[in-house]
């Protein structure tokens, strides 16, 4: 099972996990990213490169499925304006091996951070805005999976 969705609307985590649990692998791992409302942040605006996003995420998922014995992967990434508390991203993996499920989930979220064509703009109280800078740490984490 491979499911990839790039969408503005929220998603049903329970339904995603249920689909992964029903694959019979015995182990399902997930990571959900949520907008933090710190420093007066009132919204995060996610822009992406529509012609590229689906294909890029698809390649990352294929790489994970080649690298770990996975029965299923589900990746959902939202775009548009998201307020604090809103889910941004979901990665779910199913495997017969719990380490495979957890490691591939970590791999996928690390690669989404540094290789999925999304950009985040912060909107603060009072009207100030700021583009989130990429963190060298994120790139290092993604590179750490190589080799």
């Amino acid at each position: 099972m491979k499911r990839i969705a790039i969408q503005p609307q929220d998603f049903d985590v329970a339904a995603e996990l249920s689909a992964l649990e029903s694959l019979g692998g015995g182990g399902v791992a997930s990571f959900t990213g949520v907008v933090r409302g710190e420093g007066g942040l009132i919204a995060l605006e996610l822009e992406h490169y529509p012609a590229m996003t689906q294909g890029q995420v698809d390649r990352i998922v294929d790489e994970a499925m080649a690298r770990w014995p996975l029965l299923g992967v589900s990746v959902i990434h939202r775009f548009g304006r998201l307020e604090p508390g809103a889910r941004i991203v979901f990665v779910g993996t199913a495997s017969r091996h719990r380490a495979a499920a957890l490691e591939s989930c970590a791999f996928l979220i690390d690669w989404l951070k540094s290789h999925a064509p999304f950009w985040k703009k912060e909107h603060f109280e009072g009207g100030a805005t700021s583009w989130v800078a990429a963190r060298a740490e994120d790139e290092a984490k993604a590179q750490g999976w190589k080799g």
Partner: protein
Amino acid sequence: MLALVYFAWVRESIGRDEERIERPAPGATVADLIAELAGRGGGYAQALSDPTKLRAAIDQRFVSLDTVIGDAREVALFPPVTGG
């Protein structure tokens, strides 16, 4: 013609999200294209004068800035991505 697309603060500085330009000279790289566009001044210069802050994709694949544009149809210029 070559399609250019811009994202995030590159798009905001330039003031547009896409445009079409004459094909660059054969052998021109993405870095050459960036330098040429920065030479237009204004928002272009603001967005593109420091290539170390930029990333690029050719026909929806990430490439390094020294990649030759060749017969590409679309070049995208943007800051490092911040997904996830």
